[in-house]
């Protein structure tokens, strides 16, 4: 029996310190938000207990310096996630089940991976482990642990629980766990094993990049055609993970820094988006896009923060999403310069294109979303309700997160990179602003943008440009039709042309049938049990024959 307790359990270093800070921030914001959103819901005591337990377990998992401890807290997070998702609407139990099967199942694989690591090193202490990926077993171990990271963070092909739980679980839970904490943890562990525990080789890096690239593109394509606000955001939560994995997969410090920075940024704006969606749901009681519209004027604070977060997630300067994506692109380009083999160059180019194209598609889908929710025409049902802005407890987390988006974007070198990200990769290579291959001046860019906006506003006012609009009742063939019901453009069908494209149509169809869902596919595996059931027919002589056959085999083995 090895003594599990003879060395330090926990360790704080530069890689995990800023993650703990982030976990603290999100916990506080979620608690503030929940204080209003969850008011009057049943089982509040359990809800808050689970949230606090999650925070403790997450901090402990990030700090853990012992693989077993990591495993315990990591697995416990799956349990609390299951319980929290279960508190959602009446269908949430299905999403919760799916979540725990995927997350918990991947944890079991992680046990196996850790077992192999122990087999080679005889140690569970993480800072003493450093393994070359030079034999099949270790590669398998790495993949097993990486699968646990992918499942937690929601990368393909283990993503399918994220959109499902985004729809069914209570919104603060979604903003807290799948959108921020699970990303932080999954990518933290991926970075930990890729940077510290294992020495990566080219092939493994390429595999990570491929997974990242595919996740970005596939998930964003799915997001484009969604009709539900929460599900759409859920698919974006998957798509963004692709960038982080891509960044870490580049294997050079710039890319890794980009991946980690993107992880932090994503948690910020993704929580902001989900909180915003929660505000909408709180007031309107629906998140179906075709039942929303024109909320921008009614809920201005929510709208403003949602807008900032959407622009940030789409990677538009000067917000934070741009900064981290820029680093990732540079990482890929550096990777491209390093490689000599053709296959890898093609892969790098593919990933670069995927990342940029994915960014554009993200912008496109958020254009649709903003139009459908905040702009566009208001439905009669919404008008009738007299919608107001939500209370401070619900808008303040949005505003704080939106402000972080701006600060991290404008002062990118002065604050986040300097204090959080560059130290994290510093034992790899000391990075600074000057050492980056392509630098930009975020402050200058931001001031130009602000200048442009101010100028535009002045021109708008001076020129007395007025929107020349005239609204009138519509009629066709002499009959007055209901304007709202028939002529409204909610925007949900913006991208149906993509769905109808000849080569994409079958893919979307397959996606709807769950061909790409590892959970749905796994179900088919269990048809094997039919065979065994057939053999258990309940007839005594059959059973006796089984027993005799078994004995015959034993005789064959032992008496020879």
């Amino acid at each position: 029996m090895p003594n599990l307790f003879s060395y330090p359990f926990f360790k704080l270093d530069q890689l995990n310190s800023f993650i703990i800070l982030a976990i603290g921030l999100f916990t506080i914001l979620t608690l503030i938000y929940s204080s209003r959103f969850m008011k009057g819901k049943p089982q509040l005591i359990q809800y808050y207990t689970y949230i606090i337990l999650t925070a403790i377990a997450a901090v402990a998992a990030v700090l853990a310096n012992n693989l077993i401890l990591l495993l315990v807290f990591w697995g416990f997070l799956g349990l609390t996630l299951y319980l929290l998702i279960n508190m959602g609407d009446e269908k949430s139990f299905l999403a919760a089940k799916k979540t725990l099967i995927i997350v918990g199942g991947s944890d079991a694989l992680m046990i196996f991976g850790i077992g192999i690591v122990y087999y080679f090193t005889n140690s569970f202490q993480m800072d003493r482990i450093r393994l070359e990926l030079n034999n099949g077993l270790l590669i398998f171990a790495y993949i097993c642990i990486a699968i646990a990271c992918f499942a937690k963070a929601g990368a393909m092909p283990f993503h399918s629980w994220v959109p499902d739980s985004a729809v069914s679980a209570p919104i603060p839970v979604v903003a807290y766990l799948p959108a921020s904490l699970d990303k932080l943890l999954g990518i933290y562990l991926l970075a930990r094993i890729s940077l510290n525990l294992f020495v990566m080789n080219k092939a493994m890096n390429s595999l990570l990049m491929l997974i990242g690239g595919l996740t970005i593109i596939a998930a964003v394509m799915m997001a484009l055609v969604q009709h539900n606000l929460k599900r759409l955001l859920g698919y974006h939560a998957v798509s963004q993970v692709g960038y982080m994995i891509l960044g870490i997969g580049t294997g050079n410090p710039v890319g890794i820094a980009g991946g980690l920075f993107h992880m932090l940024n994503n948690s910020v704006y993704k929580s902001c988006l989900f909180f915003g969606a929660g505000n909408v749901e709180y007031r309107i009681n629906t998140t179906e896009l075709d039942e929303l519209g024109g909320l921008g004027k009614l809920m201005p604070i929510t709208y403003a923060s949602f807008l900032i977060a959407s622009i940030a997630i789409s990677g538009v300067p000067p917000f934070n999403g741009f900064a981290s994506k820029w680093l990732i692109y540079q990482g890929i380009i550096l990777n491209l310069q390093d490689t000599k083999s053709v296959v890898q160059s093609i892969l790098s180019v593919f990933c670069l294109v995927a990342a940029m194209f994915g960014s554009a598609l993200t912008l496109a889908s958020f254009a649709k979303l903003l139009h459908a929710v905040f702009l566009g025409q208001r439905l009669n049902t919404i008008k009738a309700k007299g919608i107001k802005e939500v209370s401070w407890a619900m808008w303040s987390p949005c505003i704080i997160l939106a402000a972080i988006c701006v600060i991290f974007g404008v002062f990118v070198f002065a604050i986040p990179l300097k204090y959080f990200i560059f130290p994290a990769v510093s034992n790899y290579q000391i990075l600074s602003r000057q050492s980056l291959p392509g630098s930009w001046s975020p402050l200058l860019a931001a001031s130009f943008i602000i200048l442009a906006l101010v100028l535009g506003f002045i021109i708008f006012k001076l020129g007395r440009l007025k929107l020349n609009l005239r609204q009138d009742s519509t009629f066709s063939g002499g009959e007055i039709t209901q304007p709202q019901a028939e002529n409204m453009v909610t925007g949900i069908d913006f991208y149906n042309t993509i769905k109808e494209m000849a080569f994409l149509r079958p893919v979307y169809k397959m996606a709807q049938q769950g061909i790409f869902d590892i959970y749905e596919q796994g179900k088919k595996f269990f048809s094997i049990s039919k065979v065994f059931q057939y053999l258990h027919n309940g007839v005594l002589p059959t059973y006796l024959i089984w027993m005799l056959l078994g004995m015959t085999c034993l005789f064959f083995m032992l008496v020879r």
Partner: protein
Amino acid sequence: MLLFFITIPLCAAFLISLFNRKIKNLSDFIANLATFILFLFSLSSIKLISLYKIIVYRLGGWMPPMGICLVGDGLASFMLVTVNLISFLVMIYSISYMDRYTDKWKFHALFMLMLAGMNGVILSGDLFSLYLFLEMASISAYVLVAFGTEPEDLEASFKYAIMGSIASIFILLGIGLLYSYTSTLNMADISSGLLNKPKGLLVGFVAVLFLAGFGLKSALVPFHTWLPDAHSSAPSPVSAILSGIFIKTLGIYALARIFFNILGISDKILFLFMVLGVLSMVVGALLAMAQNDIKRMLAYSSISQIGYIVFALGIGTPLALLGGLLHLFNHAVFKSLLFLNAGAIEYSTGSRKLSDLGGLNSKLPITGGTSFIGSMSIAGIPPLGGFWSKLIIIIAAVQTGHIGFAFVAVLVSIITLVYYLKFQSFVFFGKLNQAYIKVREVPLVMKLAMVFLAGISIFSGLLLTPPFKDFLQSATGILLSGTAYGQAIFGAIK
């Protein structure tokens, strides 16, 4: 003191059948008192064993190779604690549960007989009395399975009786052959006798007979076929005992004792243990996946978990044996908990079909909560007890280089998670079936037993930490000492 483990339940059975017609509810009182005292005794046995290592009780004062003796050692005390703890809690549960049946006192009397048999198997120091106690426990189990006297109960009991008797005959034949070879029935004597004699074909033949016989008692694939019928049709407390401790005492404990301490373990046998274990794991889990009846699902899951324990025994390293025994304890706790939960569900709703139920969490919060803990523990979710034993078993398997088997064990643990989540979501979550709108939570004593078991299954991982570790390690020490066991016992007598 060792004798009490057998005489107390026997006396209780006798008293129950003698007086029950006159005084109502007396059987409840006697049975609970007996199991409680036994539980206390089993706890005190830990202390005694840690002082004296091995205790031998000579029946009638005859010296062991001639006379009959009872032997208590680390492994035996571990098993005694497990058995008597579970039977104590199950007895509390059945105060209310068994009210649904007529002739409750017969249940109590038979239960006491079964308990005496199990304790006897654990303590007996010679093979023939082991056989006697084994038959005593088995026969009362056959009857208890048929206790509901529904057609399917009778059929299950019939199958069980036939297959169980065949197994017993194999065991008896094996004992006879060993007797003819070594001219003694005393375990310690056989063990040291076999050391000096060449191990010919006969020992291999006996090994097969024992593997088949005890394998059937512990429901290893392909000898498992009686279990799903028997365990699902018995009354729930009986299923809890059968799945929780019965198959472990009569099957795994006896297997471990005979193969590790008496016949001597060889690589071939270890490998067979591993193969049988992995086979049981996979087949049990896949079949459990396909069930619609809660108790049937739990029964197949028992086969699968027994597979883990036997697999761990087959790895044979100290770490693996530790994991195996911890898993044995854990499984005893959470499987009896889950059967009691199934009983509670049946008690309040009258159904145990997964497809009928749903949303019961609002109606049966205690049952729901405890069964959630049990399910998560058996599925190996940290930090619950089942996680630790599975972790140790898997790490031990990887460490000895059985990577393939370890991977299968991991996959099976994922399947386990899947079907327990299915159980949870079909029964306790989702929409409440209108037929069960008036369902009420079960009586207090049933809740009490379930809460205790759930508490133990949360904290059973603590058995690995210092104050409790000796308890487990003295049990694995016995298995590791192998055939030196015989000498140790003779040493203890003198």
